[in-house]
């Protein structure tokens, strides 16, 4: 066969230079934008009121194989540390007991967020039209699988090497019993995947990742290491290296819709709702996990919050988006108030409901009480005194027959659940901004604790129909509910949850609870 001129040129070129040649990821990526084509049905399966631009670019420019190379390098380091030196020095066990318990919740709840982010970014990959933008979201889909597995790995490691495996070893089943779970689902599960695709991106990327990832994933590593935990920093800081790309995806989402008319109409409302949605849960829960779930204190939550949420995100990050018409959310000011007291209010309720957890909780010690009072003046009058009363009545002792929940009933302080955020609140005994609002719709009563959530519900009640734990468990006895939710240890009767982490304290059993005869009631029914 005749040799073509191109073959001759290739032959000549080889004669001159035989240097090995390969192809880099960037050289492939630069063609990516042309991989798609127009056809009649080419549109997203998930409606959005915004239009994402066809020519949106991504910043990170990865191809599949290069992505894998990069991640596997990070994996080698991370799993190498965990499996080698940390295991040899018994690091899994040498963690303060209070923190061992906190990681049951933190790692498992973060896992839920990571898991739902897989689906969320799948939806965004579908919604975007530009192949580069799709590619950015695709990278995130894979990252979120990574993070799901990594969070699981933390609980897995504590299960294998830690001082109390219960809860670490079955959080995926027992987490559904208690009062923190449904609120977690709102922010980390449904808030990411159910709604207008861009609204979900704002929840996940612009608020969840750009705003709360820093306190959640970075600050937590400081608290962890102060309390002896080196597993969490090893894993979470590795997660964090991927998050930069996710924040960039959120930024590109806004860029891609910036010129769309819908953005000027809806973007700031969606952002405000997303911010309130995320902060309503994270502000109190993170503050509570850090301060009440640790022995050694790094800094008061309100300071962390002001730095990361108020200044860094509300100021700088949102400021950068100002040229696209993005404004700081109107609810930021109310959130700032929550950052001071809401986590103290929530801990009181969480502790009162301790048997429904999959972790052990601890009342503040005298030393801690001093620290709280110094950083949150007025703390003792409101909370410290009550904890002293609970302790005096034997709330830690299984023989006492006393659950702090009884204190709320005796003093006529009913606990409600906010329909939109699913966060419990006690309007008659709190220092945070919660106020009780009750609305009736289709013969059903709904309680709310703030104006922002109430507004969301008023405009779209069909989106927030989920029953809460008091409606679900109404009329049922506490130990029965826990047994049904598998909240017991492998001996079949000792509770996973306990009201103390003292190594000499006695452990509560199902029978200890049963004797008390605590029956769930729906507070809305007695209104």
């Amino acid at each position, binding site marked *: 066969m005749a040799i073509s001129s191109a073959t001759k040129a290739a032959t000549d070129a080889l004669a001159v230079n035989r240097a090995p040649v390969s192809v880099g990821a960037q050289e492939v990526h630069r063609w990516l934008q042309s991989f798609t084509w127009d056809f009649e049905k080419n549109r997203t399966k998930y409606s959005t009121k915004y239009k994402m631009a066809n020519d949106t670019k991504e910043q990170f420019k990865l191809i599949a194989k290069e992505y894998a190379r990069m*991640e596997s390098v990070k994996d080698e380091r991370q799993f190498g540390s965990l499996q080698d030196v940390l295991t040899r020095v018994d690091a899994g066990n040498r963690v303060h007991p209070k923190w061992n318990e906190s990681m049951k919740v933190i790692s498992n709840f973060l896992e839920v967020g990571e898991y739902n982010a*897989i689906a969320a970014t799948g939806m965004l990959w579908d919604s975007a039209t530009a192949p580069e933008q799709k590619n950015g979201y695709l990278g995130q889909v894979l990252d979120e699988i990574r993070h799901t597995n990594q969070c699981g790995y933390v609980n897995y490691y504590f299960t294998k090497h830690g001082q109390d495996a219960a809860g670490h070893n079955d959080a995926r089943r027992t987490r559904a019993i208690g009062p923190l779970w449904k609120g977690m689902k709102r922010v980390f599960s449904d*808030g990411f995947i159910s709604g207008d695709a861009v609204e979900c991106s704002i929840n996940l990327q612009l608020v969840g990742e750009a705003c709360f990832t820093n306190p959640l994933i970075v600050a937590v590593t400081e608290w962890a290491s102060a309390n002896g935990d080196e597993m969490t920093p090893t894993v979470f800081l590795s997660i964090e290296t991927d998050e930069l790309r996710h924040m960039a995806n959120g930024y590109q989402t806004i860029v891609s819709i910036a010129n769309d008319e819908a953005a000027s109409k809806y973007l700031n409302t969606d952002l405000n709702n997303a911010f309130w949605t995320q902060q309503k849960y994270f502000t109190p829960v993170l503050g509570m996990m850090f301060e009440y779930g640790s022995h050694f204190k790094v800094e008061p939550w309100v300071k962390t919050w002001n730095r990361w949420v108020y200044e860094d995100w509300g100021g700088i990050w949102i400021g950068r988006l100002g040229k696209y018409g993005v404004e700081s959310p109107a609810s930021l000011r109310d959130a700032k108030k929550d950052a001071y007291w809401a986590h103290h209010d929530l801990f009181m309720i969480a502790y009162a409901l301790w048997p429904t957890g999959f972790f052990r909780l601890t009342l503040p010690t005298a030393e801690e009480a001093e620290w709280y009072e110094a950083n949150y003046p007025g703390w003792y009058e409101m909370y410290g005194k009550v904890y002293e009363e609970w302790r005096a009545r034997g709330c830690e002792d299984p023989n006492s027959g006393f659950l702090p929940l009884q204190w709320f009933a005796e003093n006529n302080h009913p606990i409600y659940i906010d329909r939109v955020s699913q966060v419990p609140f006690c309007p008659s005994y709190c220092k945070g901004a919660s106020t009780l609002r009750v609305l009736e719709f289709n013969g059903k009563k709904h309680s709310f604790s703030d104006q922002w959530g109430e507004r969301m519900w008023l405009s779209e009640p069909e989106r927030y129909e989920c029953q809460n734990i008091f409606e679900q468990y109404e009329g049922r006895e506490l130990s029965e509910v826990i047994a049904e939710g598998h909240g017991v240890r492998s001996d079949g009767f000792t509770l996973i949850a306990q009201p103390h982490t003292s190594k000499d304290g006695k452990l509560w059993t199902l029978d200890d609870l049963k004797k008390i005869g605590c029956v769930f009631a729906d507070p809305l029914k007695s209104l």
Partner: protein
Amino acid sequence: MSIVVAGGRRGLTDPEIAAVILAAIPDKPLETNRKMNYFVEPRGRRLNEYEVLCCYTQPTPDWIPGGLDWGDWTQKFHGGRPSWSNESTEMHSSDWHKHRDPAFRWHALYVKDKAEEWRYTDRFLKAYSADGHVRSIDPIWRDEVLGDYLGAFGFSEYGLFNAHSSVVRDCLGDTLRMSSAMIGLDKVDNAQMIQAERTFLAKLVPGFDESTDVPKNEWTKGSIYKGARETVEEIWQGTYDWNEILFSGHMIYDPLFGQFVRREFFLRLSAYYGDNLTPFFINQMQLYHSQTKGITTDMFHTCLSADPTFGEYNDRLMRAWSDKWLPRTVNALKDFMGIFAKIPEIKGVTSKDAIEAALERVFDDWQRDYADPIGYKVDTSAFIKTVLTGLK
């Protein structure tokens, strides 16, 4: 000591802090069960790491079969559509958490394999170029077949890749979701590696056009990929049921059309035209195909077809879906036959008898591995006859 710890002091290494921690730790562990996810039914004899790290990460309520949670969704779509729902597919399962990747790959294992493949690709290309192999490729094969038609096939892979986005959003199980994302990523990897090969050729062969213009024109306007393009568009964007997307793509279209194009056309023929480069890339794709086959046959056969309650119903539905997607796939193959008129004929290799034998291999494999397990009766010789009418 004070409970305030500043300046990054670490509890594991700071003696003062460590002493407080050690004093607080219980003398013996409070719980003896050190098996995470002990309540999960293992696929093999005992629970493996993949099952520990992946199973039940999805928080679905019990009214979606297999779920461990209770109650409604805490936020729904505008108008009240649920986050995830049984109505998202016509398939029924008594446990959407049952699927397992037969290779038990969680994220770290999956990216480790692909990272090795990438590093090895880099080393292979360097050796290939330094060796001067490129001189031996037949110019028509190189410029027209690899330049245009392999390039155009990249769009088929890219379209199938995109079909996974809504599956990743909508499917009802955690292991399903992770598997779907991984087999989706393999598809875009294929499309990217096709472009990588073309870019590589452009570096070695002056004048070789690496641009995607001509292949895209072939894919969107040419006759050879017309049937394929129409089928891919329908899988990607015309289909909403996430199981049907996976079934049509991975149980019908790819094992027939994809396998013929990759294995029986590019892989089998390249050596005859002096091309030792393309087999390197196609072999990677064939590895992904076999891993994907393990995954999707687990989904559709091991789980859905064998479901104790809904197995028979699912088989019937899969047979109905086969009726729907087979003719389109056969048509795609028929159109693809046009490619044989574009290459220099080699007797016994590209002649009709050889093509028919190649088609038989593909259809036989498909019948054994995909049709028989769901009781789908089919006359493959009739399909082959139809496909062959596409020869020009």
